[in-house]
C-alpha cells in the first residue's frame, strides 16, 4: 500500500540495525509513526535504545555512526538514506543530552546564529530567527552574554534555541531535562508545549519524567531492548501501574494509590487515578470523614543522642568577588543520620558539602568532623573520614582495570597486601561489581561506572558519606538500586548526606531534610515536618511529593496524619475504608 506522508511527520520502518564492531543487533524491527503536530514522549530504561532511535531520525545513523542498516526512516517526507545529515538538519532538529558540546559560539547570539548561518540564511533573516528563538526559550536579553558564563539550565535552553533557529518542522530532544532541577524541568516542558500550541512543530522527547510526560505528551512510545513494547496515551499507560513498573518506569504517586484500591476491588482499571483531582473526587465520594486514630501528628524531631559527626560553626563562604555563597551556617549532624540536602540549583548545597572534606575552605567559621577542626587537614587526609561521591564517574576513572581503580586510594595507606585485597573485594562486592575486577572501566555501562566510582570511595571506609545527586540521569531501576545501597550503608551506621532534587527519595529515605535557599538554611527537620511547610517550600521553589499535597487536601475530612510516602497514605486510606466497610 502506498502511503502519502505529510510534511512534519515521521515514519520509522526499520528491519534491523547493528553498529559496526558490535556483535548484537541494537534493533531488530522497529516501527512507529508520528503525525504532524504531535507531542510524543519516548520512554524506557537506560540502554533501551532511545538515543539510538533519535539518531536514526535525522540520518546520523547510518551516515555518521555506521553499521548494518536495513529499512527506511522517513522524516518530513525525506528518506534519511538519500540525504546528508546537514541537509536533514534544516527540517528535523535534534537536541542531544549534553548541552556543553552543542554550544559553538562565544556569545549567546553567535551560538544561535551558527545553525542559520551554516544554512546560508540571509543576514536579516538570521537576526530575526535569533531573536525569535531566544524569546521562545526565555533567553531574551542574553544576546551578548558569554556562553561560558551561563548556568546549566540556561545552557540547556540555549541548545534548544540553537536548533529552533533553523526553523525545523520536527524537534527531537534527547533527555533535555536530566541535569535540571524540578523548576528547570517544568520550564522546558512548558516551553515545548508552548511551541507545539503555537505552530506546526512536531515534538519527540525522551526522558524519565513521569509527571511531565503525563501532563504534556499526546502519546507515549516505550522502548525496551531495542524494541517498541508499548505505545498509546500516557493516561492509559500510567493507569496500569503493574505494567508501568514492569517496563522500568516510575508510576505517578496517585496512580499507585489508585492501583492499590483497584487491587482491593474498590476501583476498576479505568478509574485508577492519574491526577490529584481524581483522587480527591474519590475521597469526597467515599469518605465523608476520617476517623483514624491520630498517630502522632507532625511527630517531633527526635533529637538523636548519638555523638556529633559533623558540626559547622558560623560557617561562611564566598567565591571570589561574588556575593556570599554560604551565610553563617550552624549545622550539627549526628552519627548515623541520613540527611537529604535539597534546594534549587545554586542555593548552596554543593558548596556546603565541599566544605566538609576540605575541597573548599570557609572564608569565616570552622568545620568540625568527629569533633576535630579540619582546617589543618588536606582533602586527601580527610578522605578516610569523609567520602565524597561525585555525579560524573568519568571524572575520576583512569586505571586500566576495575581492581586497580578501586585500589588507588589505598596505595598511600601502608596496608598489607592481604588487607588491601579484602577491602577492595568487599567494596566491589557491595556495589555488585565483583565479577568485573579484570575489566577495563570504560567498557562498563554508565550505571556500572557510577557504581565503580562509588566503590572507589567506599574502599577508604569513611564513616561519613556525601553523595552528590546519586540518581541524576538514571532510570527508575538504577535509582532504586542506588537508593537501596545507600539505605544498606545507613543501616550499617554510616552518616549519609545526600544532595538531591528528587523529593520522593528525600522523603522516603532520609530521616532529616535540610532545605537550602540563598546561601542559608531555610528549613531543617524530619521530612514529616519539613515537607508540610508548604508556604516556606514554595519560596524556595520546592514542590513536596504528591502524597504530602494530598494529605493536606484531606484535612477537611478529618485526616490528621503526616505521611511523606505514598505507602503510608495508602495504608491510612485503606484502614479508613475497611473501617467504614465494617460499620456498614
Amino acid at each position, binding site marked *: 500500500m502506498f502511503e502519502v506522508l505529510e510534511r512534519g511527520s515521521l515514519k520509522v520502518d526499520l528491519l534491523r540495525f547493528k553498529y559496526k564492531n558490535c556483535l548484537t543487533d541494537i534493533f531488530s524491527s522497529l516501527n512507529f509513526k508520528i503525525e504532524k503536530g504531535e507531542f510524543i514522549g519516548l520512554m524506557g530504561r537506560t540502554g533501551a535504545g532511545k538515543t539510538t532511535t533519535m539518531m536514526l531520525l535525522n540520518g546520523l545513523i547510518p551516515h555518521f555512526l555506521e553499521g548494518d542498516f536495513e529499512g527506511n526512516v522517513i522524516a518530513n517526507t525525506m528518506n534519511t538514506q538519500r540525504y546528508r545529515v*546537514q541537509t536533514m538538519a534544516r527540517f528535523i532538529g535534534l537536541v542531544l543530552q549534553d548541552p556543553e558540546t552543542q554550544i559553538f559560539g562565544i556569545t549567546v547570539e553567535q551560538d544561535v546564529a551558527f545553525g542559520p548561518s551554516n544554512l546560508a540564511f540571509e543576514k536579516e533573516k538570521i537576526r530575526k530567527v535569533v531573536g525569535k528563538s531566544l524569546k521562545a526559550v526565555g533567553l531574551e536579553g542574553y544576546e551578548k552574554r558569554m556562553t561560558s558564563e551561563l548556568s546549566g539550565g540556561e545552557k540547556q535552553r540555549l541548545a534548544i534555541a540553537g536548533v529552533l533557529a533553523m526553523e525545523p518542522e520536527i524537534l527531537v530532544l534527547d533527555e533535555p531535562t536530566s541535569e535540571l532541577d524540578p523548576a528547570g524541568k517544568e520550564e522546558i516542558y512548558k516551553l515545548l508545549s508552548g511551541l507545539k500550541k503555537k505552530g506546526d512543530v512536531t515534538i519527540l522527547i525522551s526522558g524519565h519524567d513521569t509527571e511531565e510526560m503525563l501532563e504534556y505528551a499526546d502519546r507515549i512510545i516505550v522502548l525496551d531492548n531495542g524494541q517498541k513494547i508499548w505505545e498509546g496515551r500516557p493516561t492509559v499507560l500510567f493507569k496500569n501501574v503493574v505494567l508501568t513498573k514492569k517496563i522500568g518506569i516510575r508510576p505517578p504517586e496517585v496512580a499507585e494509590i489508585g492501583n492499590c484500591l483497584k487491587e482491593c476491588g474498590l476501583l476498576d482499571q479505568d478509574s485508577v487515578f492519574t491526577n490529584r483531582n481524581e483522587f480527591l473526587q474519590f475521597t469526597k465520594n467515599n469518605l465523608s470523614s476520617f476517623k483514624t486514630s491520630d498517630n502522632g501528628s507532625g511527630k517531633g524531631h527526635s533529637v538523636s543522642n548519638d555523638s556529633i559527626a559533623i558540626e559547622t560553626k558560623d560557617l561562611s563562604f564566598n567565591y571570589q568577588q561574588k556575593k556570599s555563597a554560604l551565610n553563617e551556617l550552624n549545622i550539627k549532624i549526628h552519627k548515623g543520620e541520613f540527611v537529604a540536602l535539597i534546594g534549587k540549583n545554586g542555593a548552596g548545597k554543593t558548596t556546603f558539602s565541599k566544605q566538609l572534606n576540605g575541597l573548599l575552605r570557609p572564608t569565616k567559621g570552622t568545620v568540625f568532623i568527629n569533633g576535630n577542626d579540619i582546617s589543618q587537614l588536606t582533602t586527601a587526609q580527610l578522605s578516610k573520614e569523609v567520602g565524597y561521591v561525585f555525579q560524573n564517574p568519568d571524572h575520576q576513572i583512569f586505571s586500566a582495570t576495575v581492581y586497580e581503580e578501586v585500589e588507588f586510594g589505598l596505595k598511600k595507606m601502608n596496608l598489607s597486601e592481604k588487607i588491601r585485597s579484602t577491602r577492595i573485594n568487599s567494596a566491589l562486592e557491595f556495589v555488585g561489581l565483583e565479577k568485573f575486577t579484570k575489566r577495563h572501566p570504560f567498557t562498563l555501562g554508565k550505571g556500572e561506572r557510577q557504581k565503580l566510582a562509588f566503590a572507589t570511595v567506599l574502599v577508604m571506609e569513611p564513616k561519613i558519606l556525601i553523595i552528590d545527586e546519586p540518581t541524576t540521569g538514571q532510570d527508575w531501576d538504577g535509582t532504586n538500586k542506588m537508593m537501596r545501597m545507600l539505605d544498606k550503608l545507613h543501616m550499617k551506621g554510616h552518616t549519609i548526606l545526600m544532595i538531591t532534587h528528587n523529593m520522593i527519595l528525600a522523603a522516603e529515605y532520609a530521616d532529616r531534610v535540610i532545605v537550602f535557599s540563598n546561601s542559608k538554611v531555610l528549613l531543617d527537620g524530619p521530612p514529616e515536618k519539613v515537607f508540610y511547610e508548604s508556604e516556606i517550600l514554595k519560596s524556595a521553589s520546592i514542590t513536596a511529593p504528591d502524597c504530602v499535597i494530598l494529605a493536606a487536601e484531606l484535612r477537611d475530612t478529618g485526616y490528621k496524619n503526616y505521611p511523606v510516602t505514598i505507602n503510608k497514605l495508602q495504608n491510612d486510606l485503606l484502614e479508613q475504608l475497611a473501617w467504614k466497610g465494617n460499620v456498614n
Partner: protein
Amino acid sequence: MLIEYYPSESYVHKLDVRTKALGFLVFTIISFVFLSPVINLLIVLCACVILFTIGTPSTGIKKIIKPLLPIFILMLLITGFTYPASNFISEENQRTLFSLWSIPFTLGGFLYGITLVLRILIMVITSTIVTYTTPIEDILQLLKKIKIPHQFAFIIATGIRFIPTMQKKSEMIQEAQKARGAEIGTGGFIKSIGSYITVLIPLIVDSLRMSDNLAIAMLNRGFGAMKTTTDLNEIKMRGRDYLICFGEVILIAFAFWLRSKNIGVL
C-alpha cells in the same frame, strides 16, 4: 597570555580589525627599523597612552609583563657583554662601562639591549590592544578575508570557546581525585608531576568523548550544508578607518626616511 576581548565603546573598539592589524604591523616594523632606544621608548609611550585611554585593566597587563621581567634582565646582560665595541658608530657607545672577568660591558650593548626589550614591550602592548578591543569573530573574518579556509577559522573559534569548559572540567576532576585520597601537586617535583596523571587521563578521555559529541552536534546544526555561510556582522571599513590607515602608511614611510638619514642608530 593575552587579555581577552571586553566589549566597550572606546575609539579603538570602533575601528575595523584591519586598521588595528595594520597598526600592529606598523608599530612592530618601526621598532625593528631603529636601533636606538629613544625612538622605541617614544613608541612604547604612544602605545601606553592608547592602552590606558581605552580602559584596559592594569592588573591584566601586570600579569603579562611580570613573567617577562627575568627575560628582559637576561637580554640586557647578554647584549651588554657580547656586543663588541666595533659594532657601534659613535665613540660614546664604544665606551666600556665595567668589566667582569675582563669581558667588557659596553654602553652601546646595554642600549641595544634596552631596544630589544622595548621591541618586545611594543609587541606585547599593541597585540594586547588588538585582542582587548576586537571580538574573536572579527579576527576570524580577517582570516577569511586573507583566504584562510573557513574550516580552519572554525577550529580556532571552537578551540577558544572550549578553553573555559576544559578549565572547569580539570577543576572538577581534581576535586574528584582529591576526594578519594589523591594528593595533587604536592610532594617533590617528580612526584607532583606524576600526580597530575590522575587528572590528565580522565581529562583526555573526556575530551575524546566530547569531540565525538561535538562532531554530531555540528552535523545537527547543518555545518557544511551549503557552499557558503553567512556572517552575521560583516567587518566594514569606515571613513575613520581609511584615514587612520593612511596615517599609518605615512608613519612607516617617515620612519624609513629617517633611518635612511642615519637617525636612530647606535
